[in-house]
């Protein structure tokens, strides 16, 4: 029984970290219909900024997180205006080529500016070290990540389903010209949701940095995992992404605990099974 709890808590923590990092990609791919392979690059930029803020500027962790999110958005604005705007509605291949190109540029720049070594984001005192849960101990920052994941899921759901911005966003996605005809400024809506997606990427990069450390190849290394989460959950669906993360986190953790020699076999087996039964992802909408 203790083993079951133990696996469950690890799975929850891992799934939530996956969720926080991947949800921004789900937004760009599902709501904006852009296959954004540079998502990991934005997460990495956020991580580098937070690392620099805490280690070199001596800022508090909370400020560093905010700074990372907003600074990454500011960096992303010109990129959106100059590059992404050309590929909205373009064929997938064009989008993939453009965004992978951006990724390689970011890797090169990060390597040049910050060097090839690992960068850590020092945690504040109360997030360090293990917390005793009675039946086992768990790292405090993992509980923090679980909380962040829940907050992000709730906030995003509210924003998209319950606010007028959410209505405009959904209208622009479903029929851009009709929405524009009705007076929705689609360019602004797109820019705002792109900023949100990038901000979420940066936030995920910082919160997940304990599990996925920041280094120049971060941008590519974890991209497959992010894409898997989005395709299993259904692009654009927040509950879908959450479900996918918890499910995949659970399968991966259980597999790794009970049968590590099978490696990622169970993870990808689950992905194949889910995608063949739900080609649009678990909660993806039909076009």
């Amino acid at each position, binding site marked *: 029984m203790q083993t079951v709890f133990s696996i469950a808590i690890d799975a929850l923590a*891992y799934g939530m970290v996956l969720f926080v990092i991947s949800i921004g990609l789900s937004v760009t791919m599902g709501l904006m219909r852009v296959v954004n392979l540079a998502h990991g690059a934005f997460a990495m930029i956020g991580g580098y900024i937070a690392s620099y803020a805490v280690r070199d500027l001596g800022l508090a962790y909370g400020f560093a997180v905010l700074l990372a999110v907003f600074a990454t958005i500011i960096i992303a604005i010109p990129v959106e205006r100059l590059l992404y705007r050309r590929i909205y509605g373009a064929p997938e291949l064009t989008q993939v080529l453009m965004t992978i190109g951006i990724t390689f540029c970011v890797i090169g720049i990060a390597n040049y500016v910050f060097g*090839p070594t*690992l960068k850590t984001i020092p945690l504040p005192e109360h997030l360090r070290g293990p917390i005793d849960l009675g039946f086992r101990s768990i790292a405090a920052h993992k509980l923090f990540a679980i909380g962040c994941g829940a907050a992000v899921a709730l906030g995003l759901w509210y924003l998209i389903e319950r606010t007028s911005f959410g209505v405009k966003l959904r209208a622009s996605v479903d029929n851009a010209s009709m929405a524009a005809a009705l007076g929705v400024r689609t360019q602004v809506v797109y820019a705002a949701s792109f900023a949100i997606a990038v901000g979420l990427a940066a936030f995920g990069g910082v919160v997940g940095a304990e*599990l*996925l450390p920041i280094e120049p190849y971060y941008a590519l290394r974890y991209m497959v995992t992010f894409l898997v989460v989005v395709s299993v959950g259904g692009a654009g669906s927040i509950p879908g992404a959450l479900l996918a993360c918890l499910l995949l986190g659970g399968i991966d953790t259980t597999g790794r605990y009970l049968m590590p020699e099978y490696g990622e076999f169970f993870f990808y087996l689950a992905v194949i099974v889910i995608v063949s039964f739900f080609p649009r992802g678990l909660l993806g909408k039909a076009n």
Partner: protein
Amino acid sequence: MKKIIISMVAAITMCSAATADTIKIGVVGPFSGPFALQGKNFKAGIDAYIATHGAGKIGDNDIEIVYRDVPQADPAQSKALAQELVVKEGVQYLAGFYFTPDAMAVTPLLEQANVPLVVMNAATSAIITKSPLIIRTSFTTWQTSAPMAKVAKERGISKVITVVSDYGPGVDAENAFKTTFGAEGGTVVESIRMPLATNDFSPIMQRVKDSGAEAVFAFLPSGPTTLGFVKAYNENGLKQAGVQFLAPGDLTQESDLPALGDPAVGILTTFHYAVSHDSAENKAFVQAASKAIGNPAELSFPSVGAYDGMHVIYKMIEATGGTQDAQKAVDAVKGLAWESPRGPVQIDAQTRHITQNIYLREVAKHEDGTFYNKEIKTFEKQGDPGLAAVK
């Protein structure tokens, strides 16, 4: 027309004049991509040697290094580049090679090309047996892992769990530890092989805990995975529970230490080189190599393999007087002994692998808050026990 012929003749004479006394050395390594740091260390070691030994001249001969980049393990590309170096650039020596598959891929070329190969890193025992023209100045995973089993036994540890990444060097480390620890009378209670792409190590740590072992012997490729692994080791309370962390020194290479930080303090590793090694040779080396690499914090073990590799190549060039004779060159350095920055070393006359001291080190913290590998014990004149397993 006349002009063209004259310029062609001029070009040819200039070329031949240049090749007559320039000896080219082709170095293959990861100079871009995720492993660029290791390639940078190759370059730093080579530059440091050249800077401190006659600024690129041996007698009348000029030395020229030609670098070729293989960003990650890619045998086909490695072979193609080595071929190009031999045929087009006319290199007399091949050197470098960070990954085993890359080194393996070029071994069939050596005899025909009449070119010796100096392996500056690739650490699988079998490489050296593939051709009589190979010399290795780095280490093997067997060589650095086996002494750890003795350390474990000496410290009264009898039950160990091994956790390695599931790839060549990981499996090598597991076998080396298991074999030696078994011979010492210890028990390996469980052996876990994890996929290379593992991000979350908590479940593994839980298993380590449940196994009831007194120590965990680990091997992972240096970089992000190692960081995650060490963190998980602390956060899951293994350190508090007194489960000792043992590993070969790849895990705590100096360029990763600032990121590993406090959680790494107390980890025991066995390895052939620590940047902190206390000797006059090493001080001079660290100074020259730090200058070459730019940022001293990036200096780690591949630089010393490259530095000593250059030493061997220089001795080979001296012995052959600059003429191309691979066998004579290799024969000349068999048994060659010298004082390396890592301590006394010798090229074993039979195996052509480097015999060297292996040090037991503990990650420790300087007063100024930086971390280093503190050498606490020396295993003198270690050969490569892995060769016995190959044969």
